[in-house]
């Protein structure tokens, strides 16, 4: 198991842009390609965005599908309340891209 400390990898505790998510995606793929599993460590981050999670976790889930959970584990994600939510949203969006959420329903009403 190789641990990727995300803050160290991207060089900042502020994982707020997509580019950083793509860095995590590429580095994780490289490690897995060498036959190892990956632990993604979020604990040294201070800030994240949905864009970061879509580019990292969303892309990894799209790439590995059902193997995602055996190849990749995450830690330190409980540091902030909404990180787990963003993590799950990134996976859900790949699994069910058309699934309407509470947010979609509220926004649709505005356009009626």
């Amino acid at each position: 198991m190789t641990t990727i400390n995300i803050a160290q990898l991207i060089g900042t505790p502020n994982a707020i842009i997509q580019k950083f998510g793509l860095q995590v995606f590429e580095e994780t793929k490289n490690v897995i390609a060498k036959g190892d599993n990956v632990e993604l460590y979020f604990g040294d981050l201070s800030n994240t965005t949905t864009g970061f999670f879509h580019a990292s976790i969303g892309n990894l889930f799209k790439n590995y599908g059902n193997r995602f959970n055996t190849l990749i584990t995450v830690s330190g994600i409980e540091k902030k309340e909404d990180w787990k939510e963003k993590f799950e949203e990134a996976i859900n969006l790949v699994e069910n891209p058309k699934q309407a959420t509470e947010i979609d329903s509220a926004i649709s009403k505005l356009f009626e």
Partner: protein
Amino acid sequence: MTLTFKFPSEVRTDAKGNQILVNFYNYCLAFTGCWITIDWSGLNYMDANLSALLLAMTYKLKKERDLKFFLNYQDLKGPLNVFWRNGLAHHIYKTNKKTIDERESTIPIKAFKVADVDSFVNYIEKELLKHRGSDAIKFSDKEKVKNSYFEIFNNYEIHSKTDLPLIACGQLFPKQNELKFTLVDMGVGFLKNIKEYTKSTDKITDAVDAISWAIKGNSTKTDASGGTGLKKILFYCIKNNGKFHIISDDCYWQYDESISHTKINNPFIGATIHLIFKYS
């Protein structure tokens, strides 16, 4: 010849205020290599957060038209003193002085490049959310407000396709428990990318439809899923009496309890986003 653009008595964070600033920009575009007076002698009030848009305009005009701007010191008195305190006047006069706001109601004007991630985060966390004037905002709301700005910064990094900076400025209204904050990018705007991306699907061809398409959670990104940032901000505004204005191409799109839009004549470039949060 003295060139002067006279501002009206009020400029607020709305479609009318935006058109006034756009008219100023278009007036200046007709000239090169000269001085233009920004005449505020008849201006009684302007929302200070609009400094971000005014600075973006003067930055571009200086850079591309070699224009210089003059503001009369006498006009920066009374309610317009805020433009000293938030730093706009220092930028216009190039005083290089650090902004000092003894009343602590302004969030100073500042420009960021795409690579300035830590500097932007520091600005939002220190200048905005640790500001004495924002003490009344609950921690959970501060986290949501902060995340909203970071989502917009991410959009700027992905979509604006420009080397020109992102400019930010805010104003707290403690009596109204209101925070107005503006981010201006000088990139390609919403329509260009979305028109290209949807040419064989939704066939979006105007700015109103482009902004609506983006706000509903669609995205032109090809290297990741996504597009949920803007709709999350809108949802937060729906739940918390916030207001969300997006100005891009010829559309002033706004959520202010309901959605409306206004056409802009001869618009400015890029995208301007105003977020107005109420807190209790």
